[in-house]
């Protein structure tokens, strides 16, 4: 009964997403007025806000109508009438999980930074809160202008996060990150303007059912590709990622890995496929080729890394290659696998970065050669790390398996060569992850890390939610793929035309 009452809210104008966007932003403004010396107040305040925000978005999980491909929890207000821009938010099966993931990741970023951030504490948590608002905004915006605002606005706190609290080479990494993403974004901005001038609207839902001429679709596809490919990052434009991930503070790496790079792939799903369907289909082969290159190239580079964080960063290139492969295989399995793998990668790589951050806080070194025998020193930590390593490799019963399996099936259906090549990527993944695990956790105890304390309760609490997600998605994926079915089917119908029923019977169930 209670559920029904709560869920009815989602039918009309819903304030839920607006609250989730505004709460962290307003809280960040409030935090400006807290005395910077009172660090524990600031930390608890940030923690409470992020938890409250997660509480706000819970109905997205419980009340979401999985049978509908329409936008839900919609809110719409006129904003800039001169350009027909409205404040328009809502979620469908493709975006809903990302909003949830953003809310969870924000909490973990606060807890993991509890003791590791000692400098400019107030500014740090303000940045985290602003990022949270922008992340949720990106995934729920349904107006192109609004989307672009959040998309770009997120760069500011992210730049500060990397540049202020990052590692030794942080200035270089922060500027590189900013300029790469800005270059892509401004090209997308031109695309956005072109679409508006052609169709007269910024309304993404309306645009998804608008047919643009083919040559214009092609140009727009590449304009948006510039923005999304940099964020994903796809093969030729991935070089900002290792620097940014490596130099960012732990919370920054987690946000980058778990959410920010997902925005690129999300952009393909939200803009490229539905708005430029013909261009997407004709470019699918190119995209698949770039994806396969990223999978294998990213994997091989991982083999020669000496730095823990850098290795995990490059593994992101490889894993995001799987995601784009799944998306551009343009079939049910591939796309659902792609979306699921985005969530998985967010969980797994987020967790791995959290783990690296925890051990770095103790040892102050990220060199793999400085480690060894950590399983003896920090047994609980080693157990956590092992689970996430296996999930990253894609061992059955972990979430990585489900995602990669679906993607490889989808990729195989779309293009046999791509399927085969991407499967070798899984093997390379196993090689570097196991090799990493062996070097760090087994062999003799390296004296540099002898005597480190094991993870404490706060850190365990930080890792446990992700651990639960690893197994939850791994064992019972339909709880999550169920969200996507209707939306992905609708998207495929839009792409390929044809019968919705025939597509549904093809799904893996």
């Amino acid at each position, binding site marked *: 009964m209670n559920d029904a009452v709560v869920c009815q809210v989602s039918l009309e104008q819903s304030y839920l997403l607006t609250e989730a966007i505004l709460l962290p932003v307003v809280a960040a403004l409030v935090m400006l007025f807290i005395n*910077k010396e009172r660090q524990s107040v600031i930390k608890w305040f940030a923690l409470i806000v992020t938890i409250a925000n997660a509480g706000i978005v819970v109905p997205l999980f419980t009340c979401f109508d999985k049978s509908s491909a329409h936008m839900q929890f919609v809110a719409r207000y006129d*904003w*800039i*009438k*001169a*350009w027909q821009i409205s404040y328009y938010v809502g979620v469908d099966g493709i975006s809903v999980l990302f909003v949830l993931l953003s809310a969870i990741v924000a909490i973990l970023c606060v807890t993991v930074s509890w003791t590791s951030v000692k400098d*400019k504490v107030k*500014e740090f948590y303000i940045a985290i809160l602003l990022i949270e608002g922008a992340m949720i905004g990106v995934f729920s915006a349904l107006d192109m202008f609004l989307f*672009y*605002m959040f998309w*770009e*606005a997120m*760069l*500011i706190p992210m*730049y*500060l996060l990397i*540049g*202020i609290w990052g590692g030794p080479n*942080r*200035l270089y990494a*922060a*500027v590189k990150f*900013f*300029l790469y993403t*800005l*270059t892509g974004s*401004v*090209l997308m*901005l*031109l695309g956005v*303007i*072109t679409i*508006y*001038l052609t169709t007269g609207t910024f309304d993404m839902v309306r645009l998804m059912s608008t047919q643009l001429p083919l040559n214009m679709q092609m140009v727009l596809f590449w304009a948006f590709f510039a923005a999304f490919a940099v964020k994903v990052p796809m093969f030729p434009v991935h070089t900002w990622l290792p620097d940014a991930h490596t130099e960012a503070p732990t919370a920054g790496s987690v946000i980058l890995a778990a959410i920010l790079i997902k925005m690129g792939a999300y952009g393909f799903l939200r803009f490229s496929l539905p708005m430029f369907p013909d261009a997407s289909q004709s470019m699918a082969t190119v995209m698949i080729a770039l994806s396969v290159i990223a999978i294998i190239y990213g994997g091989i580079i991982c083999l020669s890394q000496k730095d823990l964080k850098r290795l995990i960063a490059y593994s992101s290139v490889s894993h995001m290659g799987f995601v784009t492969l799944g998306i551009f295989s343009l079939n049910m399995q591939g796309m659902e696998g792609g979306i699921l793998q985005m969530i998985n990668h967010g969980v797994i790589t987020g967790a791995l970065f959290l783990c690296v951050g925890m051990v770095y806080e103790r040892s102050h070194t990220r060199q793999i050669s400085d480690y060894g025998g950590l399983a003896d020193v920090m047994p609980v930590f080693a157990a956590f790390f092992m689970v996430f390593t296996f999930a990253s490799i894609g061992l059955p019963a972990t979430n990585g398996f489900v995602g990669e399996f679906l993607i490889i099936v989808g990729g195989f259906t779309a293009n046999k060569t791509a399927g085969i090549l991407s499967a070798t990527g899984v093997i390379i993944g196993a090689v570097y992850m196991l090799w990493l695990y062996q070097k760090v956790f087994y062999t003799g105890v390296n004296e540099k890390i002898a005597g480190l304390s094991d993870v404490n309760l706060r850190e365990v609490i930080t890792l446990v939610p992700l651990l639960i997600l690893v197994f939850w998605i791994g064992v019972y994926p339909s709880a999550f793929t169920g969200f996507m079915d209707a939306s992905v089917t609708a998207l495929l119908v839009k792409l390929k035309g044809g019968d919705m029923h025939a597509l549904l019977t093809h799904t893996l169930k």
Partner: protein
Amino acid sequence: MLILQQLRPLMPELALSMLGLVLLLVEAFVKRKDIVAALAFLGAFAAIFSLKFVSFGPSFNGMFISDGYSIFFKLIFFVNLILSILMSVRYLKTEESFHGEYYCLLVFSTIGMMVMASAGNLITLFLGLELMALSTYVLAGFLRHDGNSTEAAVKYFLTGGFSTALLLYGIALVYGATGSMDLRQIAVYMSEHDINGNPMAVIALVLMASAFAFKIAAVPFHMWAPDVYEGAPTPVTSFMSIGPKAAGFAVLGRVFLYAFCTLHVQWETIFIVLSVLTMSVGSVMALVQTNIKRMLAYSSIAHAGYVLVGLIAGAPEGISASMNYLLIYTFMNIGAFSVILLLNTKEFKALQISDLSGLGRAHPLVGVAMLICMFSLTGIPPMAGFIGKFYVFMAAVRSGYLWLTIVAVMFSVVSAFFYLRIVMYMYMKEPQRPQMVLVPSNALSVSLAVSVVFVLLIGVMPERFLEFAKAAVEKILLNQ
């Protein structure tokens, strides 16, 4: 009565002229110069309301035009004047160059700009331009004991005189070609007679374009700008980087878009070249500057390039985009200069970018304000700079100048680098001096706060400002 009728369109100019004269008098008798500053501020603030009572229409046989277009620019000039007065109070004290004439010159220079924006005749235009320019020459050299300031004034005067000569020559040729100095009659003559092949008209066009390019510091007529901006007293630099530039654009719009609209093909090519050069040279040269005023000078040059893009896109959308951009630029630029002025004390002049090191830690609020201005200048939402660029780019794409827009967005990425560098110094470098001194000043804080509030306000709720710019262009006279 008839005279009064004719004077109503001139209300803002009259109000300011009166203020200027009163200030001259008061300055002669009052010892405490703070009073002059306060009077200047209050007077200018009161004069803003004269904009409300202005009647539209031509007066003095079309010599002077009052319309929505000129009102919009006059608002920019008022904002610039008032905030510049606020910025100057402390600076003049620390530089020990406190003379009341300073404020008179600011006021008279502003009157000149207003006359330019309202010029319906090339002679009125020239008068306004000279009034503005002469006052600014003196302002640039206001620190008599400072060699740099004097050098700036001389440079500005010489190049300015050169551009004035070009302008006069252009005006003479226009008169020769069309037989009139009245903008409306020039337009009528040009539309009735085929003037395309007339070399006199084309040369006149080139000469006038060059003269105005000097005023807006468009490349390759920008050489004076970095030196003058660097040498001039900092509040004057801020004043000069907005006022004369906006006035230059006001006449560019009126003369080229309306009076010379039949020669569109010819001047369009000139402006496209100017715009691309201005954006590229401005952005690239700013990358290598270490002096913060020089950097802002080049940045100001680059921004003129974006405004030109809007102008090229043409009426009505492009020109209102340009005007909107200028209004936004006024706020973000004054914000940035206010921060620099806050750091300016007797013992220490913040001149190098590295002098900003650690500002974010030492003075969080000032740091955040500068951060907002820098990201706004880069054009990152939700700051106003983004709205400005968005409008200009949209107008340009709509008019079919896609390639020009691509060039513009690419240089705005380049420009991100040097704005980010300032943020980097403020937040990511340790201060070079142990204690960062920052003497608070109420007037400066107000100018900073007003700028930052408007930068955020226009960024998040641009509706009213956009409507204002749009309405301003719709109510332009001379429209055929």
